[in-house]
């Protein structure tokens, strides 16, 4: 397993992702600059959080035109694993690798706190270490995490089990009060139809050490990096 963490101008969670992959999980990991034109040879490509290009035009819209993204699109078509976290999720939506779009939080507030998430689909390479319905406590930090898709797209996503994570309360109930973003269906994370591209607003890389208040983010990285221990193929 070899991982790439793509750095755009304005990425600011790249070092956190690099630290988790290399130091916590001991996996060979490289940074890839947005002007590089190849991500060939990597099994997992991480698009980290941050404010690429200052969120100009729309979050992720300019990063999507970076030279490296052509290779990321090819890797996605090739079945390589791609995870976009926060701004990385926005980039994946703008790149049309994931359906829908993320707009300003309903509350207009930048929300920065630990949130409970419920695993809606544990049969993806990103959640295979989780139990179906498992609760994860992982921080969010975003102003634009309000997921939107048209009804046809949403129906298709449901039919294909593309909704992977939803916001819930500590008991696992999905309620309006657990939900200041306004995100459609309380969506926190989705995958593409093929299941190899995953985007989520919460930051699993910020929940990988007891010192940080939660280790639940490890479940995502464990699913990706240690599939054997998770009982998956």
């Amino acid at each position, binding site marked *: 397993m070899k991982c790439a963490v793509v750095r755009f101008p304005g990425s600011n969670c790249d070092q956190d992702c690099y630290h988790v992959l290399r130091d916590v999980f001991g996996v060979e990991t490289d940074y890839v600059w947005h002007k590089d034109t190849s991500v060939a040879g990597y099994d997992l490509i991480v698009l980290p959080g941050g404010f690429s290009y200052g969120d100009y035009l729309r979050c992720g819209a300019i990063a999507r*035109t970076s030279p490296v993204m052509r290779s990321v699109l090819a890797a996605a078509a090739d079945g390589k694993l791609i995870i976009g976290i926060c701004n990385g999720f926005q980039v994946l939506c703008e790149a049309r690798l994931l359906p829908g*779009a993320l707009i300003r939080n309903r509350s*207009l507030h930048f929300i920065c706190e630990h949130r409970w998430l419920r695993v809606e689909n544990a049969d993806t390479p990103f959640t295979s270490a989780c139990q179906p319905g498992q609760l994860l406590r992982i921080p969010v930090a975003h102003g634009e995490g309000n997921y939107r898709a048209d009804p046809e797209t949403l129906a298709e996503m449901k039919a294909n089990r593309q909704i992977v994570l939803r916001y819930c309360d500590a008991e696992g109930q999905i309620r309006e009060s657990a939900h200041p973003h306004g995100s459609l269906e309380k969506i926190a994370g989705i995958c593409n139809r093929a299941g190899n591209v995953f985007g989520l607003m919460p930051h699993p890389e910020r929940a990988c050490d007891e010192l940080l208040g939660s280790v639940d983010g490890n479940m995502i990285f464990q699913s990706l990096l240690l599939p054997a221990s998770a009982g998956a193929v």
Partner: protein
Amino acid sequence: MKATVIVTPKPSVLDPQGVAVRDALRHHDLPGVASVRIGKYMEIESDGDISEEKLHELCRDFLSNPVIEDYRIEIETPAP
């Protein structure tokens, strides 16, 4: 040539900024303000002509996100 691109949130998409500004306008003794939608206005100046077809392509693929936004284009060509 000069082109103006106006991007607005789709009517079906909630515009939280617009709602906040609408509520603020109501506080300016305008209780009748029903709706405010906030979009983007872009002026594009080019030495060479950009075809209308190309502009639409740019709007669809880059300047707007068709999932959440509509756009319209106004093209100004200088008088000969």
